[in-house]
């Protein structure tokens, strides 16, 4: 019983206050994240506005099959994450761990597919400042496109990696029976974070893979 979460951090009056504070803190943090990615989306929008043809041409060089598969994989991981949160609400420790491990595996699969795409880009000499080589009228804007592609998907991949580490830590905490159906704040907040990672990708996928393919 002693390793259950019973003590409230000393600055709080009761567990309810602690829960509300932690949740609001996470939401505000996610708001900063939205603005953080917002700069990149704004840069993308301006660049695309400046060079519509070059960006359309460049985006046909991304791999739509792998991109679509990885999108499916990531959204499935959002589903398993939601199931992990639900298991926490029901107080089922084993189910939490199971769904978290599943989510982690899907996340790793996502990173693997993305790595494959990066490797393909490397083969086609499309990595700016590294081996970029592009024949045609739009060399500079195409380079800009791929710069944004690597920066934005890279930033997203960093967030996925951080998510994997957090989920592993949460799974270990669940294994030590730190959560009850009354206290599962960390699981829920991880779920929020993971939903944010999903949502960012939902914007990245059409911008880099879909818009110019009609």
């Amino acid at each position, binding site marked *: 019983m002693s390793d259950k979460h019973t003590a409230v951090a*000393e*600055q*709080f*009056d009761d567990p309810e*206050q602690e829960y*509300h*504070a932690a949740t*609001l*803190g996470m939401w*505000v*943090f996610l*708001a*900063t*994240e939205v*603005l*953080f*990615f*917002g*700069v*990149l989306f*704004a*840069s993308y929008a*301006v*660049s695309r506005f*400046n*060079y519509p043809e070059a960006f359309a041409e460049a985006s046909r060089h991304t791999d739509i099959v792998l991109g679509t598969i990885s999108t499916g994989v990531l959204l499935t991981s959002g589903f398993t994450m939601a199931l992990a949160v639900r298991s926490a609400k029901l107080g089922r420790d084993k189910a939490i761990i199971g769904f978290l491990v599943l989510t982690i595996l899907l996340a790793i699969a996502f990173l693997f597919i993305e790595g494959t795409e990066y490797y393909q880009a490397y083969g086609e000499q499309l990595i*700016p*400042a590294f081996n970029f080589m592009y024949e045609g009228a739009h060399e*500079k*804007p195409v*380079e*800009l496109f791929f*710069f*944004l592609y690597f*920066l934005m998907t890279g930033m997203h991949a960093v967030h996925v990696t951080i998510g994997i580490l957090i989920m592993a830590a949460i799974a270990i905490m669940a294994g030590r029976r730190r959560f009850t159906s009354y206290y599962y704040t960390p699981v829920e907040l991880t779920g929020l974070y993971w939903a944010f990672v999903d949502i960012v990708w939902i914007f990245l996928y059409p911008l880099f893979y879909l818009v110019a393919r009609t």
Partner: protein
Amino acid sequence: MSANAAAEYTSYLGGGDTLKSWLTTLDHKRIAVLYLISITLFFLIGGVAAAVIRLELVTYAGDFVTAETYNKTFSLHGIVMVWFFLIPSIPATLGNFLIPLMVGARDLAFPRLNLASWYLYTVGGIFTIGMVIAGGVDTGWTFYTPFSTMFSNTYVVAAVIGVFIVGFSTIFTGINFIVTIHKMRAPGLTWFRLPMFVWANYATSAIMVLATPVLAMTLTLVAVERIFQIGIFDPALGGDPLLFQHLFWFYSHPAVYIMVLPAMGVASELIACFSRNPIFGYRFMAYSVMAIAVLGFLVWGHHMFVSGQSVYAGMMFSLFSFVVAIPSAIKVFNWTATLYKGSISFEAPMLYALGFVFLFMIGGLTGIVVAALALDVHLTDTYFVIAHFHYIMVGGSVMAYLGGIHFWWPKMTGKMYSEMWGRVAAVLIFVGFNVTFFPQFLLGYLGMPRRYHEYPEALEVLNVISSGGAVILTLGYLLPLVYLLWSLRYGRIAGGNPWEAKGLEWQTSSPPAKHNFKETPVVTEEAYAYSPYKV
């Protein structure tokens, strides 16, 4: 149990004086003191750079430092003063110390995050100082592209990293304040019973949280562009330099309100206390700070009137910039109305507060001048703009910061400082400030451009006056350092509430115990329940 009870009654300053106990503290009051010390150090560094600038400009010939050194000096001055002094000053010191006390909480919501933000501040500072030692940076604090990414041969990346890191310190502070103010108010403390200082810091935190990430990412792009030579901002590489200015000012104009909103909060506390009047139009004061925070996000383009953005964008940004003047004016009118028929006493903090209102007013009125599209075309990049933003950011922010430090010094340390010297310093700073910066309005109007280390001989008289004012100002700034430190040892004991002020922070001992209150206070009255003096 008795040891525990004794621990309850010792002040936060007692009970562990080792360096380690300070550097690992989770107490918001100790973290505030850590901030106070480090921010003062940065103020001195930025101040020395300012002194070099004014020294160079005493004569019209560039004979004290070279043009290159001059560029590095004003860049250092700007970077340090904006990011390491003005932005964190009031929120990180007074806000950290007072917000939990003012809302009747035992600490901020996330004490570890709070300590982490001080460490980030320190690490960012070390990067910036390291950059200076390595050779400095000459881009100005705005890092305008493509100069910063392609042409400057100085340590741009190091400076950018320093600013990036300190930005995260700001974000964490903002998150902590928002959550604390929302979720940890004492029973009975409704939103419209909060002190204006809390309201002001709440609005400030919203800006910190929503604007700073934009700056962080923008500076990251500058660093990436500089390192990898892929242009997102440089037109030669296909980028868009206007994009940089839009993104930069989307943060940096709201950042002005990060500096001045907390100052408004401090001024409200001081003016109410020393005129023994409730704040006039309390609700409008609260709505005004929120309105300024929101409108602050819609005006960035007034920094770009001559940049090549579309003329229609310029017109809209000009209009919005005028609109910001409305809530700002409400604040000034309501402070004046609070003073009306008050029983005013001119203690040192009150002198600072009145100085703040006066300087903020001049800064605001000249703000209307530069918000006017046509006038700004004439005044852009002249000393008029320098004078304007120094009146707002330094005259406003620093006056209120010093006023707040004086007002809450007894609360923070338990000691009173010399009232006479406090007043002398306040007057010196006020006079020194006006003598320094008022001539710069004239210089700017006559066409003296900013960022130049030499100028036509005809402008020398005004520059000499300005530099003379800077000497007075320096004296005024150094004085509090002396008598406040003196008070730590020799000052008389302050007692719980030396000013007979209202507000929860005065209901506990000075200095407060580790967890602020013996028991959670219950609030039963409105804010500023001073009884007005009746004839």
